[in-house]
């Protein structure tokens, strides 16, 4: 919602996107590879990931502009790394405000200092604040520049029917309706997904008691970018408040409603101004401010039982709703989009059987359930649901003023990338267990520093990657031979040789490791190898290179039948 006297944003000029009659309305319809319903950040990321692998998509969205309000504002490092894989991270990094700290206050006294893991060896900060409008704008601009993406505005999904070999979608536009046909559908149409509705699917899970107002205000403050949480401040007794800085002097203030607050009353402009004003006074800065936007928010942990329904994969909020406090909504959505994207491209390119799509739901729903466990806990702390939990929270916060031992309970448990350890695509766990360090099989590769302005992820291609730890730059013939078959979506596998000397007899990329630090960080020794999927998750790793197992692990990570007894026993 916006103040009554203003229709425009104080900082963001929302573009208008015009409806263009599609070929279907001219009788020139064709079978599309993928239709993506929803041009929000998750749908657009999926479209860009598909395009990276050479797969065309049609993206439809009801709206003709970018939705109002800052909404999802925290982009985690792992998500920035996804954007890097798409080659579009720079605009985000340039505009966003990076941060790594937070402070929690109880009755005006600091009780917890959040310090997210960060160091010299990282390219990106742990977290970036950026209004969702910018996130969408940057993704739309990239999608529009990509000839493989057909972006269709003012196009509302009315109905969807799945058939044996295709899906037909009824689309309503200002110029009438038409039928869109596609081999696969990605449902990225958010919390009130029309695709979900059309397929008769429901989200299952819990709703929480807590209701929050999320509000954007414009004010100039030199206060650094960090997460501030206030529990029961003396100026606003009983309230829980979160404050985040965003670009363009926009501040995001989230505050909890009392159990007896009436919702329609709480979202009235005069009530918002009164509450936000008292919170800004509490921040102790004598600042003038302007109200930009606000909305009512309720916390849920809800998910579909299966993120795949036939030829439709659900990504982002269409598949799951999580509380905002763990900053895992959009961040999970980015990971969904990348996971679904490369798999769909591999299947459409005949590099993998359709069974590969079966791995999407276990991998990403597994991530959601992990988020639920953390989010349920942080939500119960933010908004204690019972007398007992309120009493215990009071005790923890009170003790934390002077004592260390209770402070860990105040940790907001921000987003950590999920590992696909239990996925059927991950193999040779007994080999993985031989390592003492490094990303385990199923985890994503760490973006560790490998040079002055040079990091490991900078060297990944769009297909598979092999990380080989070599003595003196020697590379076994059997490895080069095994790699010749590892082409996905016409991208050949890329070999990164980690060694003190340049690689011999091959055009592989050299990751110079004079002191052995990179080798050590990966728990590797000479002859170790990591097999990396296109979404940079480790499919398998060997302390000593095994040519046959490598070939089986590659096939297994694409859900091809391998008949390897080693892999079968392994699961």
């Amino acid at each position, binding site marked *: 919602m916006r103040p009554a006297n203003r229709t425009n944003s104080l900082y963001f000029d929302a573009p208008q996107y015009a409806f263009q009659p599609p070929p279907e309305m001219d009788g020139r319809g064709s079978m599309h590879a993928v239709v993506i319903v929803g041009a929000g950040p998750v749908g657009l990321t999926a479209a860009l990931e598909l395009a990276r692998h050479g797969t065309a998509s049609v993206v439809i969205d009801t709206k003709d502009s970018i939705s109002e309000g800052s909404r999802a504002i925290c982009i985690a490092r792992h998500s920035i790394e996804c954007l890097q894989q798409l080659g579009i991270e720079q605009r985000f990094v340039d505009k966003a405000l990076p941060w790594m700290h937070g402070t929690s206050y109880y009755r005006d*006294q600091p009780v917890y200092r959040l310090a997210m893991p960060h160091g010299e060896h990282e390219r990106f900060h742990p977290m970036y604040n950026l209004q969702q409008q910018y996130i969408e704008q940057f993704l739309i601009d990239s999608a529009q520049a990509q000839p493989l993406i057909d972006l269709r505005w003012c196009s509302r999904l009315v109905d969807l029917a799945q058939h044996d070999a295709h899906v037909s979608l009824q689309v309503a536009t200002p110029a009438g309706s038409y039928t869109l046909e596609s081999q696969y559908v990605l449902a990225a149409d958010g919390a009130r997904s029309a695709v979900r509705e059309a397929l008769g699917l429901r989200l299952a899970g819990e709703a929480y008691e807590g209701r929050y107002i999320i509000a954007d205000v414009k004010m100039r403050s030199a206060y650094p970018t960090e997460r501030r949480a206030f529990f029961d401040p003396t100026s606003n007794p009983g309230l829980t408040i979160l404050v985040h800085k965003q670009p363009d002097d926009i501040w995001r203030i989230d505050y909890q409603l009392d159990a007896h607050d009436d919702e329609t009353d709480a979202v009235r402009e005069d009530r918002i101004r009164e509450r936000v004003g008292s919170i800004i006074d509490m921040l102790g800065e004598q600042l003038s401010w302007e109200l930009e936007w606000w909305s009512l928010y309720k916390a849920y942990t809800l998910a579909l039982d299966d993120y795949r329904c036939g030829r439709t994969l659900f990504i982002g909020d269409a598949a799951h709703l999580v509380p905002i406090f763990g900053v895992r909504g959009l961040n999970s959505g980015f990971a969904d989009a990348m996971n679904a994207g490369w798999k769909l491209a591999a299947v459409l390119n005949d590099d993998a059987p359709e069974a590969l799509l079966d791995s999407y739901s276990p991998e990403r729903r597994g991530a959601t359930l992990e988020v639920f466990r953390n989010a349920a806990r942080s939500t119960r702390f933010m908004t204690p649901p*019972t007398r*007992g939990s309120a*009493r215990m929270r009071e005790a923890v916060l009170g003790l934390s003023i*002077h004592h260390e031992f209770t402070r*860990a*309970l105040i940790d907001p448990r921000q987003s950590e990338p999920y590992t696909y350890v239990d996925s059927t695509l991950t193999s040779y766990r007994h080999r993985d267990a031989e390592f003492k360090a490094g990303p385990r099989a199923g985890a994503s590769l760490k973006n560790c520093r490998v040079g002055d302005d040079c990091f490991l992820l900078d060297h990944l291609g769009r297909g598979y990657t092999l990380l080989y730890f070599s003595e003196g730059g020697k590379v076994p013939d059997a490895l080069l031979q095994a790699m010749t078959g590892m082409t996905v979506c016409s991208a050949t596998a890329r070999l990164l040789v980690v060694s003190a000397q340049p690689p011999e007899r091959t055009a592989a990329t050299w990751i110079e490791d004079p002191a052995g630090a990179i080798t050590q960080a990966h728990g590797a020794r000479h002859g170790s190898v990591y097999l990396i999927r296109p979404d940079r998750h480790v499919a398998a790793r060997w302390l000593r290179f095994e040519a046959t197992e490598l070939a089986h692990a590659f096939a297994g990570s694409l859900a091809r039948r391998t008949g390897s007894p080693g892999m079968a026993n392994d699961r």
Partner: protein
Amino acid sequence: MNPAALEKIYDLLAAAIDALPPEEEAAFLARLALVLANEIDDIEVVKTAIKTALVRPGE
């Protein structure tokens, strides 16, 4: 104590308090304190714990 164990205790105590009528909460916490003091079996440790818990937020 590791945070996971403390978290578990937080949940157990919250559930125990929820199971009682509000007017019995203080009596329960007093009984619990005596049971734990008996387990600790060290009067100096209990004395320090009482002092620690007596400090109210804002003091």
